C-alpha cells in the first residue's frame, strides 16, 4: 500500500496541510501535492474502474500521460468529470469522486464484464452494429449507452469565467525542463522575444528528480540559476501552468493556462487560452516512459518506474513497501536506487535483457539488489492491489520460476519522445532502432510560409535520453550515469499464451489488450489508423500516450513487418484535453455574440417589445400590451396604422452613399433598372441581382446630388451589399471613379405611416410635407422638431408614408417626439410582423420570403424593374439562359383560401401524378402567408407554375395530418389596387 514518508519531498510544504475528499471520504495532503500524490500519500491506491471491464485501476503515471486516475472534481455547477489527478493541483476543500462504477468503487456490478471478456473482443461495437440487425437498436445500444463514458456530465451552468489572450514572439519554447531552459537562455541572450511555456507548476522537468551535473552544478541548482537569468531578461516571458496544446499552420501556437483552478470562486478566470504567433517553436516536450505488456499490468500498484521515482522524490510518497522493478533498460535502476535511499525494499529487479551492464546496474548489484537477468513477469498477483509477481524466463511462454511478494511493481519499457507538437503541423518522424522509439526527423520539419522550419525539437523530445546528450545539444557540459543499451520488449514473456495476452493491457483507459490488436490483425486490419478505430486503441482521453508505440509494435509483429512500416497514428491537437470554457473565452451570456442595437432599442425593450432577430440586430416583432397575444398585438398595430398612424423603427435599413463621376454608370451595373437617369431629389425602387441573375437585394435609391446617390438596402443586407459594391470597385472596375460609404448606422430612421402621418409631421413642425412640397417618391431635407432631418416620401404599406432619417444621436429624441406628439392622432409603434403583413396586403415582395437565392425578378413579375435599354447589368446575361426564360418557371401569384383560413407557411401545391421517387408531383409553393386583419381573412403569396395565367383556379396544398388546404389563385395585390391611399 502507498503511504507518505516522514521526511523529504521536493515540492510539498508540510507546514501547509490541506483537506480534501475522495468519494466522500475525508483525506489530507500538503500544499504542493497533486491530487494523485495526495491520494497515494493517503493510501488510496485504487482510484477508479476501467471503461469496459470495470477492472480496478490505480495511478500509473505522474504526469499528462496518466490513463487511469481520472476523477470527478467539484460539485454541482463546478462539477467537472475526467480530471486527471496527476496534473491537477491539490487545493483546500477539493471534492473528488471516483468514476465508472456502480454502486461503489469497492463493489462494482459492472466488474462482471471482466469475467465475460471473451464477449467483448476487439471491434465489439462494430460487430454489434452488424449482426443481428435488430440487436444494435434494441439490445446493444441501450446497454452501451448506459455503461459507456467515464464521468458524469455536469448539469448546471458553469459559474466560472474564461478568457483568451494574444501573444507574439520570435521563439516559443514548449517545455520548461533543462532542454527548454537551455534553449530559452540561448534565444534570450541572442535578443529574441521568447515565451517559455511549462505545463506543470514546476521547472526543471525530469533532471531535478533524476539528478546529474550541469555546467558544474547539481541539476536542481542549475535550473534555479537558469530561471533567475531568464527572469532578469526583459525579452523573455516565463509561463508555468501553461501547456502548449497545439502547433498550427504559420507558427500559431495554442497555449492553455490554468489560472484559477485551485481557487474556485475567487473571481479570477479559471483558464486562459493563449493564441500565440511564434516565429519558431522549440519543442522541449520531453519523453514519456512506456509500460511493459504482461498479464495483470493494470492492477493497482503497477506503475511506471519513473512515476514511482517522482512520487518518492517530489512528494515523499512511497508507492509500496516492497517494489519489484521490471525493465528493459538501465533508467529504471534509478528507481530501485532511489527506493533504497528512502529505506524501502526492492526484492528484485527483473531485467528482460540477458546481459545488462553499466554503472547503474553495478550500483544496484553492489547495494545488494537481486538482478534477475533475462527474466520477465508471468503475471501480477492481486485483485484490487498488487500482492506479488510470478517470474518467468522472458524468452519462454511464462512457466513460473519464482514468486515474489510485493505491493508495487515499477515497470519500464523504454522511453518515447513526446513528438506531438512537432507532428501537429506535419513534422515527420524516424524510427530509432537503438532506443526502439520514433524521434523527430529534423530533415523534415513542419514548414512555414517561407518553406523554412517552424519547429525545432530539443532534448528528450528530440530523442536525447541522457542528460549529457541533452545538454551537449545546447552546448553545455553535463554529466550523468552512463547507461547500457536497452532491448525492445513488446510482450512479456515473449511467447505469452492466450491466457496471459488476454490480461496484458495496452490501452488502460479503453481496456485494449494485446490479444485485441492481434485479433484485429487476424481479421485483416493492416492500417494502424483502422486498427486504432476498430480496437479503440489510443482513442480515450489520454489519446494513447502510453499505448501508442506498444500497440503498433504488437500490430507490426502480428503483420510480420517492421514498426516503421506500420507507422504511427496521427498526432492531433490538443496535447491533453482543454476546457470548452477556454475555447469559448469571453463569448458567453450577454457577449456570446454581438447584439446590434438601434438608438431606440432600450425604448422598445422598456415597452415590452417581442423581439425578432434580423441579422445581428433585434427588431421589435410587435409591442404586446398587457394581456394581449402577439397575434392580437400585430392585428391592432396594423389596423391602427391603416386607420390612424403607425411608427416603425427602420434604423436597421441599409444606407450606402455612392458618389463619383462614374457613380451613375456603377449603379446601372448593380441594379437591374436604370438609376443614372433618376432626377436629383427623387427616389426609385430598385432590384439587385448576382451574376447568375438571382435576386439578392432590393430597396429605394435616392439621388442626392448630381454625382451622389443613397442606396437603401434590406436590414440584413447592408454589410453584404456594401462589400459587394467594394468587391466590384476594387477587383473588377478599379479604374471607375466611385467612392462608397456605408452610413447605415449614421442615421436613425423612422417610418411614419398612415392617413394621419402628415398631420403628425406638421404638428412636429419645421418642414413642409404637403402633397405639393413633397410628392410621392421624393425627398426633402430640413429641420424637423429641431432635429436635422431628411424626409423620404416612400411607402412599403400602401399608406401615406414618410421615412425620416436623423443623425443616430437624435434618434431616440425623434422617436419620443413622434410618440408623444402622435398620441393625439392615435399614433402607436408597430413591429416587423405588422410591416410584413401590410406589405403582403399590397403584394410587395420581401427578400428572403419570396426569394431564396433561386428566384429571378421575372419569377416575381418584376419585369417592369428590368431595364431593356441598358447594354449590361449584373445578372443580365444569366437571365437569358434557357432555364431562366423557360415559361414553365413558377411565378408569383396571390393565394386566397376557399374558406378564408390561413395557409400554412412553406406548403407545396400538388399536381397530378408521381415523380420517379414515388412522390407527388408539385406545381407551386407558398412563400408568404398571413392573417390580414384589414381583409379579415388569410392571404398568401406563392410561386405557381403558369400562375398568372391561372387566375381563379383552385389548387390543393396538402398540410399536416392529411389536411388539404384549397386556395384560389388571385392577384397578389389584395388591398387598394389603385394606390389611392398612399397618393394623398
Amino acid at each position, binding site marked *: 500500500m502507498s503511504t507518505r514518508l516522514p521526511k523529504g519531498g521536493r515540492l510539498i510544504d508540510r507546514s501547509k496541510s490541506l483537506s480534501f475528499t475522495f468519494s466522500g471520504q475525508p483525506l489530507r495532503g500538503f500544499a504542493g501535492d497533486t491530487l494523485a500524490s495526495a491520494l497515494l500519500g493517503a493510501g488510496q491506491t485504487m482510484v477508479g474502474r476501467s471503461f469496459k471491464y470495470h477492472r480496478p485501476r490505480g495511478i500509473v503515471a505522474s504526469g499528462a500521460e496518466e490513463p487511469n486516475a481520472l476523477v470527478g472534481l467539484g460539485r454541482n455547477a463546478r462539477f467537472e468529470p475526467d480530471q486527471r489527478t496527476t496534473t491537477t493541483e491539490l487545493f483546500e476543500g477539493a471534492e473528488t469522486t471516483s468514476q465508472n462504477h456502480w454502486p461503489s468503487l469497492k463493489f462494482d456490478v459492472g466488474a462482471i464484464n471482466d469475467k465475460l471478456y471473451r464477449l467483448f473482443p476487439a471491434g465489439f461495437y462494430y460487430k454489434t452494429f452488424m449482426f443481428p440487425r435488430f440487436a444494435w437498436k434494441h439490445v446493444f445500444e441501450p446497454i452501451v449507452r448506459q455503461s459507456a463514458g467515464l464521468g458524469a456530465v455536469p448539469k448546471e451552468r458553469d459559474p466560472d469565467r474564461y*478568457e483568451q*489572450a494574444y501573444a*507574439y514572439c520570435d521563439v516559443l519554447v514548449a517545455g520548461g525542463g533543462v532542454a527548454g531552459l537551455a534553449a530559452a537562455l540561448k534565444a534570450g541572450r541572442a535578443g529574441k522575444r521568447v515565451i517559455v511555456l511549462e505545463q506543470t507548476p514546476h521547472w526543471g522537468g525530469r533532471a531535478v528528480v533524476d539528478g546529474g551535473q550541469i555546467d558544474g552544478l547539481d541539476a536542481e541548482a542549475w535550473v534555479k540559476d537558469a530561471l533567475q537569468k531568464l527572469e532578469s531578461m526583459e525579452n523573455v516571458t516565463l509561463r508555468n501552468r501553461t501547456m502548449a496544446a497545439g502547433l498550427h499552420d504559420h507558427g500559431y501556437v495554442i497555449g492553455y493556462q490554468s489560472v484559477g483552478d485551485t481557487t474556485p470562486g475567487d473571481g479570477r478566470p479559471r483558464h486562459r487560452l493563449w493564441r500565440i504567433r511564434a516565429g519558431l517553436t522549440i519543442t522541449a516536450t520531453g519523453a514519456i516512459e512506456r509500460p511493459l505488456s504482461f498479464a495483470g499490468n493494470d492492477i493497482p500498484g503497477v506503475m511506471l518506474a519513473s512515476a514511482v521515482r517522482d512520487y518518492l522524490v517530489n512528494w515523499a510518497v512511497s508507492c509500496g513497501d516492497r517494489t519489484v522493478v521490471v525493465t528493459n533498460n538501465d533508467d529504471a535502476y534509478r528507481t530501485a536506487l532511489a527506493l533504497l535511499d528512502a529505506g524501502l525494499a526492492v526484492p528484485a529487479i527483473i531485467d528482460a535483457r540477458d546481459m545488462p551492464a553499466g554503472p547503474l546496474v553495478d550500483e544496484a548489484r553492489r547495494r545488494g539488489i537481486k538482478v534477475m537477468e533475462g527474466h520477465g513477469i508471468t503475471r501480477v498477483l492481486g485483485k484490487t492491489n498488487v500482492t506479488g509477481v510470478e517470474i518467468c524466463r522472458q524468452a519462454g511462454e511464462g512457466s513460473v520460476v519464482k514468486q515474489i511478494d510485493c505491493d508495487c511493481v515499477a515497470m519500464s519499457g523504454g522511453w518515447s519522445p513526446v513528438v506531438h507538437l512537432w507532428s501537429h503541423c506535419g513534422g515527420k518522424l524516424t524510427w530509432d532502432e537503438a532506443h526502439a522509439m520514433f524521434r523527430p526527423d529534423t530533415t523534415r520539419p513542419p514548414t512555414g510560409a517561407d518553406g523554412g522550419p517552424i519547429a525545432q525539437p530539443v532534448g528528450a523530445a528530440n530523442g536525447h535520453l541522457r542528460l549529457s546528450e541533452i545538454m551537449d545539444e545546447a552546448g553545455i557540459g553535463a554529466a550523468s550515469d552512463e547507461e547500457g543499451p536497452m532491448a525492445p520488449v513488446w510482450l512479456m514473456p515473449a511467447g505469452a499464451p492466450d491466457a496471459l495476452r488476454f490480461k496484458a493491457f495496452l490501452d488502460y483507459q479503453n481496456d485494449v489488450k494485446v490479444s485485441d490488436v492481434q485479433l484485429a490483425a487476424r481479421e485483416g486490419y493492416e492500417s494502424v489508423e483502422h486498427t486504432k478505430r476498430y480496437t479503440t486503441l489510443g482513442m480515450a482521453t489520454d489519446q494513447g500516450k502510453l499505448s501508442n508505440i506498444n500497440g503498433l509494435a504488437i500490430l507490426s509483429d502480428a503483420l510480420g513487418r517492421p514498426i516503421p512500416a506500420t507507422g504511427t497514428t496521427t498526432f492531433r491537437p490538443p496535447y491533453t484535453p482543454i476546457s470548452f470554457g477556454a475555447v469559448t473565452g*469571453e463569448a458567453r451570456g450577454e457577449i456570446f455574440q454581438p447584439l*446590434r442595437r438601434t438608438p431606440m432599442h432600450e425604448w422598445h425593450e422598456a415597452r415590452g417589445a417581442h423581439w425578432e432577430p434580423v441579422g445581428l440586430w433585434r427588431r421589435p416583432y410587435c409591442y404586446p400590451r398587457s394581456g394581449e397575444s402577439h397575434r392580437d398585438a400585430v392585428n391592432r398595430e396594423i389596423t391602427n396604422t391603416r386607420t390612424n398612424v403607425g411608427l416603425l423603427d427602420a434604423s436597421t435599413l441599409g444606407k450606402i452613399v455612392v458618389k463619383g463621376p462614374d457613380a451613375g454608370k456603377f449603379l446601372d451595373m448593380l441594379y437591374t433598372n436604370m438609376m443614372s437617369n433618376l432626377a436629383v431629389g427623387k427616389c426609385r425602387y430598385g432590384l439587385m441581382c448576382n451574376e447568375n441573375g438571382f435576386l439578392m437585394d432590393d430597396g429605394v435609391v435616392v439621388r442626392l446630388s448630381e454625382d451622389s446617390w443613397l442606396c437603401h438596402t434590406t436590414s440584413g443586407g447592408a454589410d453584404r451589399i456594401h462589400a459587394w459594391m467594394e468587391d466590384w470597385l476594387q477587383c473588377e472596375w478599379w479604374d471607375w471613379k466611385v*467612392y462608397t460609404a456605408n452610413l447605415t448606422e449614421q442615421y436613425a430612421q423612422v417610418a411614419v405611416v398612415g392617413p394621419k402621418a402628415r398631420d403628425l409631421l406638421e404638428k412636429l413642425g419645421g418642414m413642409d410635407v404637403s402633397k405639393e412640397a413633397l410628392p410621392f417618391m421624393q425627398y426633402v431635407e430640413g429641420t424637423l422638431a429641431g432635429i436635422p432631418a431628411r424626409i423620404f416620401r416612400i411607402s412599403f404599406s400602401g399608406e401615406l408614408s414618410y421615412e425620416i432619417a436623423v443623425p443616430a444621436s437624435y434618434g431616440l429624441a425623434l422617436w419620443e417626439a413622434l410618440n408623444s406628439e402622435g398620441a393625439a392622432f392615435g399614433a402607436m409603434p408597430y413591429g416587423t410582423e405588422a410591416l410584413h403583413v401590410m406589405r403582403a396586403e399590397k403584394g410587395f415582395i420581401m427578400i428572403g420570403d419570396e426569394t431564396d437565392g433561386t428566384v429571378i425578378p421575372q419569377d416575381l413579375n418584376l419585369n417592369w424593374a428590368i431595364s431593356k435599354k441598358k447594354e449590361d447589368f449584373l445578372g443580365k446575361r444569366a437571365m437569358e439562359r434557357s432555364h431562366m426564360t423557360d415559361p414553365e418557371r413558377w411565378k408569383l401569384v396571390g393565394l386566397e383560401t376557399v374558406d378564408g383560413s390561413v395557409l400554412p407557411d412553406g406548403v407545396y401545391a400538388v399536381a397530378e401524378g408521381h415523380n420517379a421517387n414515388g412522390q407527388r408531383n408539385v406545381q407551386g409553393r407558398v412563400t408568404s402567408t398571413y392573417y390580414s386583419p384589414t381583409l379579415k381573412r388569410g392571404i398568401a403569396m406563392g410561386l405557381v407554375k403558369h400562375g398568372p395565367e391561372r387566375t381563379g383556379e383552385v389548387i390543393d396544398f396538402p398540410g399536416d395530418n392529411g389536411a388539404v388546404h384549397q386556395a384560389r389563385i388571385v392577384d397578389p395585390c389584395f388591398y387598394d389596387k389603385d394606390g389611392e391611399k398612399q397618393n394623398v
Partner: protein
Amino acid sequence: MSEPVSALNGAKAQGFAQVAEQGLKGMIAIRCDLESKSLAKVVKGMGLSVPAQRRIVTAEGRALAWMSPDELLLLCDYADASGVTAQLAEALAKEHALVTDVSDARALFRVSGEKADQVLMKLCPVDFETLPEGEMRRTRAAQVAAAIWRSGSEELSIICFRSVAGYMMGLLEVSARQGGEIA
C-alpha cells in the same frame, strides 16, 4: 431643441483598468486621393498633415488617421463635425472625393491605466508590445471591427460601430475585471 446622445451616454467600468465610453465625438470619413494637394492644404489649415500609412496625427484637439490607401478619418469635437465636413467637401469639391460625417455611426471608448494593454490583448490580435504611439491599428475586438490607437500615456482609444457599443462595453468590462490581470 433636442440634445444628441451617444450610444452609451458615457458609461464607465472600473476593473484593473478604467473603461469609459467617451460620449459624442466628431468623426469624418474622407475618401480621396491621399496625394491630393487640396487635401494637404485643407488639413494643414487645421494644423494637421496627411498621415502616412497606419499613422495618426494629432493637433489642437483634432486628429487625422490613415484608414486605407484612399481613406482618412478626421476626429474633432462633435459640435464642429458638420461644419468641418462641409469645409472639407468644399475644399475637395473639384476632385473625386467623398466626405461623410460618420460621428453618429461610431462609438469611442478609452481604456486607461498601467495595465490598459492587457485589456485589449485579450480581445484583439495585435502585438501591443510593439504597437507604437502614433499608429492607428484597424483590427477586431472579439467579433466586431475596431480601430485602436495609443491616445495618451497608459491610455488606448477604441472606435467601433455605434450599434455594437453595448457589446464592446461588455467585452472591455469583462476583460478588465479584477483578477484577470496577466502576471
